[in-house]
């Protein structure tokens, strides 16, 4: 019984990503066409060469037809899947396994979400018919529970913690300002972040990720075929996933300062990739900063910071673009935006650019290993995805 992994067996040879934001003039089908077309072009292939597709969307459409109709696919297999906010990563994970198995030579993973047509604030979703007793907490409310719990556990006063959280938002906006595809492309001052209207608990508007529309896609093949399509492929070193038993919602032992699902999935990913010291070996990461306290806690769950020290590392700039271990160099969910089904592939898109030296003003010097982390649900009850990618084999 083991998660054996498929290290270095699958490569990404082309990617596409639409700008994220309020696309009043584009539907989900338009966004899919844009992302797929860019990915085909990036890999130098046409639709006829792709053997199968994995489409991730939380709720902007149903079934493989959403993609096959939009792209007018020639009777190809299309799997549509959903795994909350980790949907895009799941599309890629399952596509990668299909290639690794030998079932297909060349596949596409594509994610999309069209959130701005609902007319509502924040995320909405349709639930199955229920008994009406489910918790009514919104996403920011559930994640806001992390902040006071963290402050209490590690003796950080709430004013200091507020500054730490604001700095995370400030950093990610600063990175996003350098990204032509990000939803928010402006730096935001610490003062403005701290003064933003309250959404839930300690969280203001600027502690929340952008609600947006967008799509991203990747073309994958077996590693040995990668150079047929590009001279600079990136290789999947690890793909890990964990869905928890929702222990935090039942057990009084859970204290809202960690995501056990993230610990499990990152531990598995490091094992698959042979990473023994993530703080030193991971060059950069795109993580699921849905709300600022999430990024703080993730740094500890993934071993980037020792327990109780992430707040200091954040303050000292360790995770800045110029820092020792840049986190969310593309702006993250915070400023790149979070169209659910697309986000996991958007994170990989930044790895693709960075590992190929194409990230322009955001380029990190000589990165070797990058990590993407994608999470769905709430503290105590979530799913978590971790991937590790690199630009060389071995």
């Amino acid at each position, binding site marked *: 019984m083991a998660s054996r992994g498929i290290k270095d067996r699958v490569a990404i040879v082309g990617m596409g990503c639409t700008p994220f934001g309020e696309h009043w003039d584009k539907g989900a089908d338009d966004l899919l066409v844009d992302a797929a077309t860019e990915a085909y072009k990036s890999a130098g292939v046409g639709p006829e060469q792709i053997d199968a597709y994995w489409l991730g969307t939380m709720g902007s459409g149903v079934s493989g037809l959403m993609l096959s109709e939009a792209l007018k696919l020639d009777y190809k297999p299309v799997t549509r899947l959903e795994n909350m906010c980790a949907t895009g990563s799941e599309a890629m994970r399952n596509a990668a396994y299909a290639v690794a198995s030998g079932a297909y030579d060349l596949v596409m993973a594509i994610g999309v979400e069209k959130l701005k047509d*609902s*007319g*509502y*604030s*924040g995320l*909405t979703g349709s*639930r199955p*018919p*229920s*008994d*009406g*007793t489910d*918790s*009514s*907490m*919104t996403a*920011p*409310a559930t994640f*806001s*529970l992390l902040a*006071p*719990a963290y402050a*209490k556990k590690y003796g950080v006063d709430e004013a200091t913690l507020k500054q730490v959280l604001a700095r995370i938002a400030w950093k990610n906006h600063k990175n996003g300002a350098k990204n032509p595809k990000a939803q928010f492309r402006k730096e935001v001052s610490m003062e403005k972040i701290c003064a933003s*209207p*309250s*959404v*839930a*608990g300690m969280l203001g508007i600027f502690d929340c990720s952008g609600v947006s529309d967008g799509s991203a896609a990747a073309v994958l093949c077996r590693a040995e075929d990668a150079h047929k399509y590009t001279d600079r492929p990136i290789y999947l070193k690890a793909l890990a996933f964990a869905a928890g*038993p*929702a*222990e935090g*919602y*039942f*057990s*009084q032992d*859970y204290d*809202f300062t960690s995501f056990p699902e993230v610990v499990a999935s990152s531990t598995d990913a490091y094992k698959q990739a042979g990473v023994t010291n993530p703080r030193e070996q991971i060059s950069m990461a795109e993580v699921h900063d849905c709300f600022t306290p999430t990024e703080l806690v993730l740094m500890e769950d993934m071993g980037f910071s020792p327990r109780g020290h992430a707040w200091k590392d954040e303050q000292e700039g360790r995770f800045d673009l110029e820092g020792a271990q840049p986190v969310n160099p593309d702006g993250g969910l915070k400023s790149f935006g979070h169209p659910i089904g697309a986000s996991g592939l958007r994170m990989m898109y930044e790895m693709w650019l960075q590992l190929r030296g194409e990230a322009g003003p955001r380029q990190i010097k000589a990165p070797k290993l990058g990590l993407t982390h994608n999470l769905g649900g709430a503290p105590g009850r979530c799913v978590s995805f971790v991937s590790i990618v690199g630009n060389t084999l071995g």
Partner: protein
Amino acid sequence: MAGITRYGSYLPYNRLERAALGAGKGERTVASYDEDSVSMAVEAGRDAVRGGREIETLLFATTSAPYAEKLNAATIAAALDLPRTVRALELGSSTRMGLGALLAGADAASGGGRALVIASDVVIGAPGGARESGGGDGAAAFVTGPDSEAVARFVGRASATAEILDVWRLPSDPFAKQWEERFGAETLGPIAVDTATHALKSAGIGPADLKTVVLDGTNARAVAFVPEALRLKPEQIADPLLGAVGRAGAAHVGIVLARALDRANAGDKILVLCSADGCDALVLEVTERIAGGRPLHSVDRWLGAKRTALPYNTYLKWRGILPFEPPRRPEPERPAAPPMRRADHWKYAFIGSRCEACNTGHLPPQRVCVKCAAVDQMREERFADASCKVATYTLDHLAYTLQPPVVAAIVDYAGGGRLSCELTDVDPKAVAIGNELEMTFRRLYTGQGVHNYFWKARPKR
């Protein structure tokens, strides 16, 4: 003979000051945005059935039934975890039905049965009118049973029914109307005097033997005929709580009677009278069991725990009178019948489960233990009365609610178990980790014409 064996009352937390209405002194009780006559009935009923749930008949009286068609009493029976074999009856259309239900409960007890009688009302008057300022919201509950268990036995009664256009409301009307006061007084007043006289006669006592007289009616002047005709002394008349509660519709006599029982001594005789569309009167004799038969919450305890100075526009919004800007969030979906039915022990009785293998508590009930993964080794456990506290909390400014922000908490139960739920009747600024809580039955919202009842937590009252 038979009598009241247990009782309970409930007054909501919010008060509307009459000064805010330009309508004199005092205040009225106001059911919160998440309360209705059914949820308040459950709160009053919980105290009354603390001594035992072996109820054969449930009688529910209200003029503000949440459903015009569908047995509201079934929700109450489910939330109180009454036996599945309970007979349930509803009485409505007149505020006299509160006392009417108690008389019917007395009949059931005289026949050897045991009844739970609950009267509960949310009184809504047209803005600016006397009913709005003079009304109140609340509930009272009484268990009737054998004389041997009675805290107060039924010793006399009388009734009269008269066809009079006094208070009326069409099913399609939001507010009741009332004919001119002098007409009501002079027609209903003499009927009330006759009924009181007959009740005392049936009890074989005179007015001077009464320790307490509970007087209630649609027309204060009509009711005032009684003490005058019977030559009652002011100290015999129970405080009608009009300044602190307001007339709480069908529940009113019950609330005032509960307060009288809160203060009564063995041997006290009490006349309870309600004048509406005729009159009902009941004479009670308090027994020595009263000392051990009182509920956890006295009426005065409910009166003392309150939030005053509710803004008038908030009140109007809660009652659906004032249109308002909705939050930019989807309206809540109606709960669905089959899942509600499957989960009725959980949703209504607040019954979770506990793992027989490792003793871990689960809310909602689970088949597989979250700690030891044992399958189908659970026993049911009711958490409704378990003490609990705030493990952590947040103020949710985004969630859909009539009273932002939603105070959302992770609640931990003594003896194990945890639930993510809303707090209610709470000052958001006063919430802190570790705060002691208790559960309360509420109407979370109404979605697409279906009421969604479930439990919330509130600071201990």
